[in-house]
């Protein structure tokens, strides 16, 4: 009888709390959104299932080595790649190997839109400070506005990791970043319609010029040297991004680029997703701070979108009449590749069914990835 009771004490039922139920429902919600609406499924399915795994109630600290925060558990070992900041650069390597920077090379002025949209990061940083977060924590929260999952995980693993008096906010920040990236098609359109006139949304842009292979090869090399000389602290992310891109564009290292953008990034995505999900164990995740972070994250996406759109309108003041920028593509500067570019395309089509903006929106879109990595580097320099 005693032995049966002992076994019962180990079950999920004996260790159940309502927090577990809430988190399990959240996990099921992620999986549902991913499968039913195909919102970022490659991330939401692993994260969602990770939330389930991380919120099965169990008896902690009795040597079973089950929990992600228990030394010696498999999850704990795999999670080290998150806490030590190793997975994000590897993801960037793969993203570099699958990203075509052609449109950016052909219209480099659109790079500025990718800079403008990083407004969300810095405004959210101030907002988080106002709510009482420590500067390092606030910077990590701010990066949600960069709309880039690996960058958010990288910066929070450096700045809000539970060391130096900070709280461990990696979980909430990562979940917030990926949630809002999935919800970009819901968040951005109202802001875009609010800040642009119908005439502006109808602006047609010149077709981009063709780009030579030489330029494509030079881009990652020159890009690395320029960005890293000004902000060396962005090197772990941008170094790998440009490295992956050179593997792709060099023409002589195709098999390496192929591996980087398939089995390498897939493996890291699987493990990163499931461990970030599992890190949301109810006992550490369901806190007032998490709610605040989700609120700040929503605001940051709105501000970032506005920043990109308004700067596009500002640029139009100086551009010749026949070469203006459609401000809708400014919204694509938030990163969230390629969803925010798609949103620009869709909104553009609503204003003019023959005006395809996708090609143009890809430029600020990938510029936003670079922009938020630089912002992360700067914040790391100041607060690291």
């Amino acid at each position, binding site marked *: 009888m005693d032995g049966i009771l002992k076994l019962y004490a180990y079950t999920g039922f004996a260790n159940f709390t309502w927090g577990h139920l809430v988190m399990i429902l959240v996990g099921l919600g992620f999986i549902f959104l991913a499968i039913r609406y195909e919102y970022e499924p490659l991330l939401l399915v692993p994260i969602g299932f990770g939330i389930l795994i991380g919120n099965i109630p169990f008896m902690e600290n009795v040597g079973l080595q089950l929990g992600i925060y228990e030394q010696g558990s498999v999850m704990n070992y795999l999670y080290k790649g998150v806490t030590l900041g190793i997975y994000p650069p590897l993801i960037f390597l793969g993203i570099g190997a699958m990203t075509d920077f052609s449109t950016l090379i052909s219209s480099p002025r659109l790079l500025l839109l990718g800079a403008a949209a990083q407004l969300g990061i810095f405004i959210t940083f101030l907002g988080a400070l106002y709510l009482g977060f420590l500067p390092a924590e606030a910077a990590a929260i701010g990066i949600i506005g960069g709309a880039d999952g690996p960058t958010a995980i990288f910066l929070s693993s450096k700045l809000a990791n539970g060391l130096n008096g900070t709280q461990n906010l990696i979980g909430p920040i990562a979940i917030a970043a990926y949630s809002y990236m999935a919800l970009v098609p819901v968040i951005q359109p109202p802001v875009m319609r609010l800040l642009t006139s119908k005439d502006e949304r109808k602006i047609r842009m010149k077709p981009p010029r063709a780009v030579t292979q030489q330029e494509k090869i030079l881009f990652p090399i020159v890009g690395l040297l320029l960005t890293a000389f*000004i902000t060396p602290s962005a090197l772990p992310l941008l170094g790998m991004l440009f490295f992956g891109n050179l593997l792709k564009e060099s023409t002589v290292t195709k098999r390496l680029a192929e591996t980087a953008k398939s089995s390498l990034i897939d493996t890291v995505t699987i493990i990163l997703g499931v461990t970030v999900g599992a890190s949301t164990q109810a006992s550490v995740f369901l806190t007032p701070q998490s709610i605040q972070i989700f609120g700040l994250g929503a605001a940051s996406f709105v501000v970032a979108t506005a920043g990109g759109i308004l700067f596009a309108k500002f640029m139009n003041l100086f551009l010749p009449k026949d070469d203006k920028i459609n401000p809708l593509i400014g919204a694509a500067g938030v990163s969230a590749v390629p969803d925010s570019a798609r949103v620009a395309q869709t909104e553009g089509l609503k204003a003019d069914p023959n005006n395809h903006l*996708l090609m143009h929106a890809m430029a600020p879109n990938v510029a936003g990835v670079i922009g938020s990595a630089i912002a992360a580097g700067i914040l790391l320099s100041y607060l690291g």
Partner: protein
Amino acid sequence: MNTDIIMYHLPIPMLLEITPESWLIAGVGYTVVFLVLLVLFLVFATIPRILGTYSRARKMGRDFQENLRQAGKEKIGKEDPTIVTGEVAAAIATALNLYLNDHHDEENPTLTINKISRNYSPWSSKIYGVMNTPNRNNR
């Protein structure tokens, strides 16, 4: 190593002022992001002109045979790089069309993968040793 992570300590009073230094970080930070991408813009606005000149100079110095040999390699480089040709426009249109009408086609390529790996179903899972047919032992 040091994984004794301090989790979610008590909420800090919300009265902490945003210090001037924080405003500075935000201001300088946003400015530097612009600066870096501005420099990148300027450089890549200049590069095509540099490459253009260079290519043209080199082109003159090369004999006909050499040109032939490199024809395949540098095809795209020889076209006027400043304007989109008809073919390129068509390609873009096709890409857009593909994007707009045919999402599910994007999954089709994986069919090849599936075909390659169809022998890993539980019936024939190599990881479990598919060839290990019991009847072979009786022959």
